[in-house]
């Protein structure tokens, strides 16, 4: 293996995320400032070729949608209060099938909560954010390496699946600085968007076996493009609930679920003979890794599953869960939002929750719950 001289720098996650998004092809950033996403706003203003300071979050999302429909590749960063305002527009962009990336930096809720306190409290809302329960891709980085690679993945997914994609992070992940070797960053490929070849009339919502319709932007000189958020057929004609329109609506679900393997990302750290599994995601991963190391030093056999593609839930995750008689889930929220998504609301005998809100879960708290 080639050894490079380390290129150590002191860097924060916000900077890595914006740089990765820009390298991957994000060319437009629209945002309304909100703590703890303000560093991203600052970096994006400098780094992304077009940056717009929108007057509110609804406008933010409408501008993004218009620009996406016209062929640009927009992103924004916000936190729950801003996301709440965007929900109707997120549904619009989802139904229109417009590529874009939405960064959510989680902070303590409910409501305004505490803007400078981290949290993992917004997974539940993303699980139901599209009316009708349709899935939307949610990636959650567990550290700086992931911030880089999942930002690229988010951009690729947005284009490949013609969809809004969420990057779910949290205050502690993007607002602390860490010594970091830049050599760890793998080169990012800028997403390619070749113009699809269409014979005859372009039907904007007619998909092949990929279930994703080819994308041609508004203003195209060759084909007329129709885009709509209301229930529609392949030609974007608005329909009430006729079979063709319902088939198109169902496709919005199927395009993700039928291709779930392309959206599945996790780390599984296995140890021979382990019968316990610790599951975590996002910011709690740091503590979980420290806890895992100490538990193994103590001679405990335990595996660690870090889920990075949180939604839609991959069947591969269930396959892993089914291999363990005893499961622990650590996440920084009161009720266990990933636990509820994976196992439902009812208590499950072999699943123990490690939850906390208002502060990060510590390695010792994880160890204490397991030992």
């Amino acid at each position, binding site marked *: 293996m080639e050894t490079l001289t380390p290129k150590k720098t002191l860097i924060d996650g916000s*900077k890595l995320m914006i740089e990765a998004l820009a*390298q991957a092809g994000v060319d437009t950033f629209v945002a309304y400032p909100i703590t703890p996403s303000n560093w991203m706003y600052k970096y994006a203003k*400098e780094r992304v070729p077009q940056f717009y300071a929108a007057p509110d979050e609804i406008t933010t999302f409408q501008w993004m949608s218009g620009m996406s429909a016209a062929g640009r590749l927009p992103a924004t960063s916000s936190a729950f209060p801003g996301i709440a305002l965007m929900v109707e527009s997120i549904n619009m962009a989802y139904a229109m099938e417009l590529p874009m990336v939405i960064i959510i930096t989680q902070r303590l809720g409910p409501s305004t909560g505490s803007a400078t306190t981290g949290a993992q409290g917004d997974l539940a809302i993303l699980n139901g954010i599209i009316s009708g329960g349709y899935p939307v891709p949610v990636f959650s980085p567990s550290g700086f390496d992931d911030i880089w690679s999942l930002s690229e993945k988010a951009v690729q997914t947005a284009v490949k699946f013609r969809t809004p994609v969420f990057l779910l992070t949290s205050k502690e992940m993007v607002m602390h600085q860490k010594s970091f070797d830049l050599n760890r960053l793998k080169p990012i490929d800028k997403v390619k968007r070749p113009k699809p070849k269409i014979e005859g009339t372009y039907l904007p919502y007619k998909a092949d076996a990929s279930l994703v319709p080819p994308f041609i932007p508004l203003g195209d000189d060759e084909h007329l493009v129709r885009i709509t958020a209301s229930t529609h057929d392949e030609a974007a004609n608005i329909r009430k609930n006729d079979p063709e329109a319902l088939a198109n609506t169902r496709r919005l679900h199927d395009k993700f679920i039928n291709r779930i393997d392309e959206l599945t990302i996790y780390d599984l750290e296995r140890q021979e003979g382990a019968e316990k599994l610790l599951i975590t995601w996002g910011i709690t991963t740091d503590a979980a890794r420290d806890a895992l190391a100490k538990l193994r030093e103590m001679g405990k056999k335990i595996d660690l599953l870090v889920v990075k593609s949180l939604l839609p839930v991959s069947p591969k995750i269930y396959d892993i869960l089914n291999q363990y008689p005893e499961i622990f889930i650590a996440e920084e929220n009161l009720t266990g939002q990933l636990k509820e998504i994976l196992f439902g609301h009812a208590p499950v005998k072999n699943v123990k929750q490690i939850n906390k809100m208002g502060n990060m879960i510590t390695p010792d708290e994880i160890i204490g719950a397991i030992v």
Partner: protein
Amino acid sequence: MTKNKQTYLTDKKFPFCPGCGHGISINALNKALQELNYGPNDVIVVSDIGCSGLIDPLFATHTIHGLHGRSPALGLGVAMGVAQKPNKKVIAFIGDGGATIGLQHILEAARRNVDMTLIVLNNLLYGMTGGQISGLSTQKFKEIIDFEKDIPPFDLIQLAHASGSRFSVRVNAPNRIKDTLKKAIETEGFSIVEAASLCPSYGMKKMNELMEVVEHEEIFEHDRPATKIKDKPVHSLLEETPVIKPQFKSELKERKGILIAGSAGGGAQSVARFLALAGMHAGLETTMKGEYPITVGTGFSVAEVILDHQPINYTGLEKPDYFIIVTADGLSKVRNKLHNDAQIYIDEKLVDDDLKNQYPNLISVPFSKMANRKSTALAATAYVLNKTGILPVEALKEAVSSHRLKDIFLEVIEKVTQQPV
């Protein structure tokens, strides 16, 4: 102007109620586009929700159909998105109900003055949901229905004009709509045309009745060039991120956490960053994070630095090994974290009997006498490094050496570390 034979309309039948005024504006737009000779692929029609939102299937142009009240914002997004393609024209429609929801979007689009036209079809009410009043329902109309008649409507045209719209018109006479639209579309920048429209189902059934209750016509112009949209040149954020080479040796035996507690404007955050960089100059791994109130210019300013030879995962610091406390704000923020296993370095003025009794080993230092208010945290940190050997003072000097105020900082560090301790 010669009229081309192109129609910008599909062969679909208008979906409006018999006698509805919306068709007049749609036909007028078609004629205006014919006279202006746009190609259908150059026109993007943006539609809203409500009766005026039924129009997108009618246009044989590009179309996009979004949410209620949002077509001015969606349309501006499209306009910004196509701005670098030549000769594209975005025309957004909205009703008076949508305009009430999206008032902010209209004012914002007017202020931005990017090339687009907004057509407001004002039939004084919500036709799709039962004839409820909107923010543009006039008082004369509300007298007839005897509801909220004392509340005036928004004057959308004046509002748009005041916000910077290049061309803003209210037109009531149907026979003038086409020419008004033509002028609006020719205007480079934001233009808005509010056209009076009949709603035979819930509002005025006849044109002469409608003319009795509408607001008077208005026309405003601004001599203001349209805002140009273009990509700015950018460069990688990583280019400006300095790569740190280890040049010093650390005597650190195991992971240590240092908490610096001061007040806003006292440099605690910068000093913590210097300390983290100093750690890297000494070959260590580090994390650094700050905590301060939302109102960043007042109150406490606390920063945590962790130093270790090993990579650091968890960044929390429940039990700092060192406290460097320079102000009362800082002390009150971290007081409940103090513990007797830590080395507590604190400004002498902050030490009271309670503190001394509870933490008998605390080290009282005249930090505030060592430097001015802005440099006290740096002086204190240099003092602690010198005293404890956590890191070589030279590493701290190296860390500040790329800062624009390095001369001042180096002087502070020199002064503190050369005096006998």
